[in-house]
């Protein structure tokens, strides 16, 4: 631990990595890509340290209160007997419990190969070299030098999963990290997902904690490849409890005519940072990013998105909204890069925020960087409150003011997820969010009196 100060938050987690590198021979280091990644992660962290609000990419988000806990890496071998019934439909569960892969919950599904990363890492440290193509792809899209949390993830590289989708699966893939621990837990997971040409899949990435006493911190890095004409729907569920913190770094690389559609629903986790980037590498690729934050108490949501147009005739569109109450904070930074060769690009971005309290905060930065001239790029951002005329109109129709507020807020929010393709999931999300809006406007008690049809059908 030459340059890493163990007294700094989270750095104590790295001692095992350091030992594993100390014990490795030069040959092992040369042939084992996982060891190399860990080393690069350590080196990068030693250089940069964890981000602070002084780093432009981490401005407005003060991590200190979330990383100061005495986190431990998972040690328990305990397994989760059965999957908690969170979602209202059948899924293909790829579940991690207290940071450990739970293969027994996964029944074989046609067209999808799930490989445990831990198994590969352990195997590599025994016999070294026999690695397939996909294993080598780890670290290709997101390198430790890109971002401190990717570096941390690489340094702690062990648990995770590689998903290869070769045929369109009939059910959504439920990629979940569930924790239940009496002490603060740090969960470090790495995912690599590849969709073969012409396939389509839905992946739900969920963070849950079953214990309410100790915080859980997730550091999740996902690299996703979409081959020609494949289609991915990726849903981030971040509607758990206040003790659930997460930093999720995701990069999607798209080839010709592939499509991706992302939904990020943040409504409950104490702190979430999403760093999501999409690279449109070949012509006619398409991406749509939707994000919704409904925040209360001291919750913080930080959404950083980047769409890179690297080839002609690609399309991207982005819609992020937030409703921020109490002392909560919503941060949005949306970047669109249009490289010189990406002519005929269409890129749209909009970001709308509603503040419900004087202590709530919204920081937004829609950012365009354009290097091609034959493009159509627009962005818009607004921050405001509910239009008083609309509230008044509903009041004249006999709705009490709080009900009018909920009705309008719901309509504002629903735009983000009303296109979500899986109906039971959409209805479930809608119910969860509606309940939250009722709570925020403090109507929970009168809920039964309010006869409103919220289910989007």
């Amino acid at each position, binding site marked *: 631990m030459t340059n890493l100060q163990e007294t700094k938050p989270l750095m104590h987690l790295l001692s095992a990595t350091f030992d594993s590198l100390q014990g490795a021979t030069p040959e092992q280091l040369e042939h084992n890509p996982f060891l190399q990644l860990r080393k690069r992660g350590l080196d990068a962290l030693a250089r940069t340290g964890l981000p602070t609000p002084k780093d432009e990419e981490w401005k407005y988000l003060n991590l200190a209160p979330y990383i100061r806990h005495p986190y431990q890496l998972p040690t328990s071998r305990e397994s989760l007997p059965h999957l908690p019934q969170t979602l209202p439909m059948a899924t293909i569960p790829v579940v991690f419990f207290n940071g450990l892969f739970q293969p027994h919950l996964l029944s074989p599904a046609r067209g999808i190969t799930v490989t445990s990363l831990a198994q590969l890492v352990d195997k590599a440290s025994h016999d070294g070299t026999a690695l397939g193509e996909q294993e080598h792809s780890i670290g290709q899209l997101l390198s430790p030098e890109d971002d401190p949390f990717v570096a941390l993830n690489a340094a702690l590289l062990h648990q995770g999963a590689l998903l290869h989708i070769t045929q369109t699966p009939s059910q959504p893939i439920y990629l979940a990290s569930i924790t239940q621990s009496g002490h603060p837990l740090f969960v470090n997971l790495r995912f690599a997902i590849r969709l073969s040409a012409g396939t389509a899949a839905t992946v739900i990435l969920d963070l849950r904690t079953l214990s309410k006493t100790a915080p859980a911190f997730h550091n999740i890095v996902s690299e996703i490849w979409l081959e020609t004409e494949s289609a991915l729907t990726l849903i981030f569920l971040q509607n758990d409890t206040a003790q659930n913190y997460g930093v999720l770094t995701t990069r999607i690389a798209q080839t010709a005519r592939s499509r991706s559609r992302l939904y990020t629903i943040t409504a409950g986790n104490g702190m979430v940072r999403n760093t999501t980037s999409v690279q449109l590498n070949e012509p006619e690729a398409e991406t749509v990013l939707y994000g919704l934050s409904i925040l209360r108490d001291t919750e913080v949501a930080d959404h950083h998105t980047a769409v890179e147009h690297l080839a002609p005739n690609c399309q991207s569109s982005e819609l992020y909204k937030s409703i921020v109450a109490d002392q909560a904070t919503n941060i949005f930074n949306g970047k669109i890069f249009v490289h010189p060769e990406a002519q005929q690009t269409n890129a749209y971005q909009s970001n709308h925020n509603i503040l419900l309290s004087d202590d709530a905060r919204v920081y937004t*930065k829609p950012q365009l960087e354009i290097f091609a001239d034959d*493009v159509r790029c627009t962005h818009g*951002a607004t921050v405001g409150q509910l239009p008083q005329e609309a509230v008044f109109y509903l009041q004249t129709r006999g709705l009490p003011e709080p009900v009018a507020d909920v009705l309008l807020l719901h309509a504002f929010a629903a735009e983000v997820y009303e296109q979500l393709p899986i109906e039971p999931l959409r209805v479930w999300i809608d119910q969860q969010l509606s309940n939250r809006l009722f709570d925020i406007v403090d109507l929970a008690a009168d809920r039964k009196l309010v006869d409103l049809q919220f289910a989007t059908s």
Partner: protein
Amino acid sequence: MSEDLKIIEEVTGSDYKYGFVSNIEEELAPPGLNEEIIRFISQKKNEPEWLLEWRLKAFRAWQKMKEPKWANIHYPPIDFQSLHYYAAPKKQQRPKSLDEIDPEIRRTFEKLGIPLEEQKLLAGVAVDAVLDSVSVATTFKEKLAELGIIFCSMSEAIQEHPDLVRKYLGSVVPYNDNFYAALNSAVFSDGSFVYVPPGVRCPMELSTYFRINAAKTGQFERTLIIADEGSYVSYLEGCTAPMRDEHQLHAAVVELIALKDAEIKYSTVQNWYPGDKEGKGGIYNFVTKRGICKGPNAKISWTQVETGSAITWKYPSVILLGDNSVGEFYSIALTNNHQQADTGTKMIHIGKNTRSRIVSKSIAAGKSNNSYRGLVRVLKKAENARNYSQCDSMLIGNRCGAHTFPYIEVENKTATVEHEATVSKIGEDMLFYLNQRGIPTEEAVALIVNGFSEEVLQHLPMEFAIEARKLLAISLEGSVG
């Protein structure tokens, strides 16, 4: 398309039309910067003790600061110790009439098209021409004096109105505000000073032509404008500079103070030497401009047309402290060849019912990069703050870049903040239509660019609007995307 590109190159590659050097004997301080030089400047200008102390404080703060690197611009490191920090035309006696002015200087102004001789005939323009740091001529002063308006060089103001200067200097841009503002505070040579007394509406546009002349002289202007209660003033600033090989640094500071019910309108047309086609030479324009609406119902409006300079790096800002105060920012930034611009504004809403409006039009051609960077900040106590921002970019050719970095920070729920941005090009259909009506491509482009910029141009005072239109055409005539 290739034909169009050729036209762009031909036209946008045209030489700088205002490049020349006037040979006036100059008094130079030795290059380099230390406390001695600052004492030298201060002594040369016969300044009071407090000002010297202030300069030294700024210098000490500057020594501890690091050069900022965050902007989206690239340039070789500046050797601050190789610059001259003081240059003054040798003749120190103030001329009593135009005839007393060095004929060489007058020829310079004539080449620039500054109507110094005709000023008195010209409708309502009083020109305080600044040539290399010392004011050479000030006119219309008497007429302004009748109304109690003070319009003079900063050095003169320090001698004659020390109380006002002491009260307001550094009150908007503190001496340690940022790297270049600290440098300016330490070594500022001269600039303009305006004070408009309560209830007075300044009857003419006040105007200063800045001009950088001596080679290797960083120019450090300091402008201070105070509009007392219920007054109004419109101030014009415009610049051209001779062609030089070496980069020249310009780090000015402009401070505007609008008290209760006062209004300041500040317009800039900036056309300094942008460097040659390969990006060699050209001015570095690193300026701190900030205004404060100190009292209720005050208004500050910035309008800028930025076509020159190798690098433009500035954010004319407004602090909306008084209730119901208004801030405005209208900008056209045009970059060509290897020019770089990182410009925008900051609107800081502090008072209740404050309003701000931002309209930014950027045009990038050649291999240039043009960035809009803006901040709209609504503080917790700023009830009913309102902001509208619009940033439009136009790209001409595919080797240039347009960037938008708008920061929006809202801490009050009653705020309404809107931001929108678009990026577009000059459409082939538009050009075809105009061609087909018999308008040659070059003129068509000028027409389209003028149309694109109209919203900003209309906020310029008449004289400037005409000049600005010409400038846009000169800088870009015939560009096609």
